[in-house]
């Protein structure tokens, strides 16, 4: 059991901290959440700054421990969050880095790292949510192209994305897990229609996507034809295992703010509320330890794809996040009904955490079957 950092890691932390102190004051003001083009430009600009300073690939090639330091320091300094770069940096990119050919890595990874291209995730469909393997979007081969038709749902950032990691069915006769293929589709291809959907938080975070005879070069397939389910598991491992870990640091900051607000507003004298905040402190401390634990596991396994421990983390974290913002509402009192107050929108968006990236029910089944070895039901 060891929580010490190597001299190199400490050095990385010191240099990063210094750089953040220099660069953050020079950033433009944060755009409004409703202005997607501005948000895209802002998020890409931040990634570009990271790239130019040598931090672009921290989510990929750095050791898991270095990545934890990156999260700690960027959050502590109040740096921007990955935002529109979420899919590219945290799961499509890592999937291509793991599964792509050298030419594919050369084509797609540098623009993600330089903050030039945004990716979105076209997995879910109207009839394929939790049961992702039942997806129906079809791709037929036409020479050196796939011709794709179907529809996708809940595609986050689709409006501003350049590329989509897309799951299609290439063999409808095969058993359902064996007829799926993972493609990279350019979002400006003819036949792609995006219709934004408004979320319960009021803004358009995700979209419906209609695909009508969209031509995707066979060369843009990642992994073999009909081997897409295996590639999907790689993508989902990154999404559940590491993509949210950095947010734990942000939650701990919010918790401190909540406690100070409670003190200023007088609610701190209510022991039930105070202890609820104390309990959340325990919760997020433990979640960060779990992130460290999982990082140690990945490091020992020689890096690469995070294991099922990701589901354990994802489950616990998504519920903790909801409890955090419910507690914020308790701190705010009646003000929690005012959308202009801080944390009220966050409370609304926290509701998606037990659904997106695999619902809590699905994660429990994964933990039960793959960690505990319980039998599948009939």
């Amino acid at each position, binding site marked *: *059991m*060891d*929580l*010490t*950092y190597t001299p190199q*890691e400490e050095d990385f932390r010191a240099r990063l901290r210094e750089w953040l102190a220099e660069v953050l004051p020079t950033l433009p003001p944060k755009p409004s959440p409703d202005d997607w083009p501005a948000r895209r430009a802002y998020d890409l600009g931040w990634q570009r700054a990271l790239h130019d300073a040598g931090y672009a690939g921290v989510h990929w090639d750095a050791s898991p*421990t270095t990545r*934890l330091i990156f999260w700690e320091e960027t959050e502590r300094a109040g740096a921007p969050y990955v935002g529109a770069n979420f899919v590219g940096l945290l799961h499509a990119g890592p999937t291509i880095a793991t599964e792509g050919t050298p030419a594919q890595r050369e084509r797609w990874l540098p623009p993600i790292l330089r903050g030039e291209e945004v990716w979105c995730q076209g997995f879910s469909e109207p009839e394929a949510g939790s049961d992702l393997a039942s997806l129906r979007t079809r791709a037929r081969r036409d020479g050196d192209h796939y011709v794709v038709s179907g529809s996708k749902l809940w595609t986050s950032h689709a409006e501003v994305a350049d590329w989509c990691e897309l799951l299609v069915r290439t063999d409808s006769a095969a058993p359902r897990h064996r007829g799926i293929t993972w493609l990279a589709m350019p979002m400006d291809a003819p036949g792609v229609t995006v219709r934004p959907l408004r979320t319960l938080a009021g803004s358009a975070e995700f979209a419906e996507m209609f695909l009508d005879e969209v031509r995707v070069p066979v060369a843009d397939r990642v992994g073999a034809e009909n081997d897409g389910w295996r590639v999907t598991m790689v993508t989902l491992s990154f999404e559940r295992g590491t993509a949210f870990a950095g947010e734990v640091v942000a939650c*701990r900051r919010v*918790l*401190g703010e*909540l*406690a*100070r607000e409670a*003190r200023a507003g007088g609610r*701190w004298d209510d022991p039930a509320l*105070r*202890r609820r*905040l*104390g*309990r959340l*402190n*325990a*919760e997020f*401390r*433990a*979640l960060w*330890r*779990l992130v*460290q*634990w999982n*990082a*140690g*596991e990945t*490091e*020992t396994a020689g890096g690469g794809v995070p294991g099922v*421990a990701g589901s*354990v983390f994802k*489950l*616990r974290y998504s519920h903790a996040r909801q409890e955090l913002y419910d507690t914020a509402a308790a701190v705010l009192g009646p003000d929690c009904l005012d959308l202009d107050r801080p944390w009220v929108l966050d409370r609304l968006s926290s509701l998606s955490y037990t659904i997106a990236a695999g619902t809590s*029910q699905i*994660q*429990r*089944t994964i*933990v*039960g*079957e793959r*960690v*505990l*070895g*319980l*039998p*599948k*039901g*009939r």
Partner: protein
Amino acid sequence: MRLHPTDDQRALRDSLRRLLARRFGAVALRAAVAGPGLDRALWRELGAAGFFALRLPEADGGVGLGLPEAVLAFEEAGRALLPGPLAATCLAAGTVSGAATGETVVTAVDGGGLVEWLDASDTVLGDASGAVPLRSVDPLTPLHRVPAPASVGPPDPVAVLLTAAEQLGTAARVCELAVQHARARKQFGQPIGAFQAVKHLCADMLVRTETARAAVYAAAVTAGPADIAAARLLADEAAGRGSRDCLQVHGGMGFTWESEVHLHLKRAWVRSHRAGGVTESEELLAADLVAGAG
């Protein structure tokens, strides 16, 4: 940085697990429930294995290891439902003669006024005058109550952490018991663990256990008061709720005296009242938030 136990630490844990399986297995557990009393021979054997002296410097006749090793040892004790004032004796090693070797059994008056194993102990730390026995809910933990406990300072963080480690052992053990039963017991023509309602109970037990494990091991490394308080809260929850869920998974069998499940639940309850209880830890962690250290 690696929070996992090292090879040496795992070896220590495994050897203790073997010792406890040999000396305090299912039969000994039953016997202990039927005829309560501290097994002094076992206590000395634990002493010889270094259980009470893990953190004592070698110069003082100890093993010279740290909190992480002590935490692993107490996790094993928790798993095995090992009875006795373990934490108090361990903390007394080096100050009370014979505690380190398991010759002397040491108990302590807890801040809440309870004393575990008073009659069986050789030494009591704190003022136990006027202590009266109560009918303990846990058949393996005799309890006395001190009518007017002298106000003591905040609980010793090491005692809190060792208790959390025992709770972690319970949490892991009841999760295992539930999973074993869920695989073996069939209803409606399939193992009950194939039913989602049961599978998800088990999954939640594991999630609570592994989160608590990360918190307990990290607290053993940092020894920080807030980390220890967090470990305590998470481990208490994992042990308490886990034991209940384990009982639920066992059905009617879980409600019997015969089954081991209730012993875990009752012990988890006893431990959750030690060292200031849950409230104290919650308050400490709340104060930590506004101290700006959180």
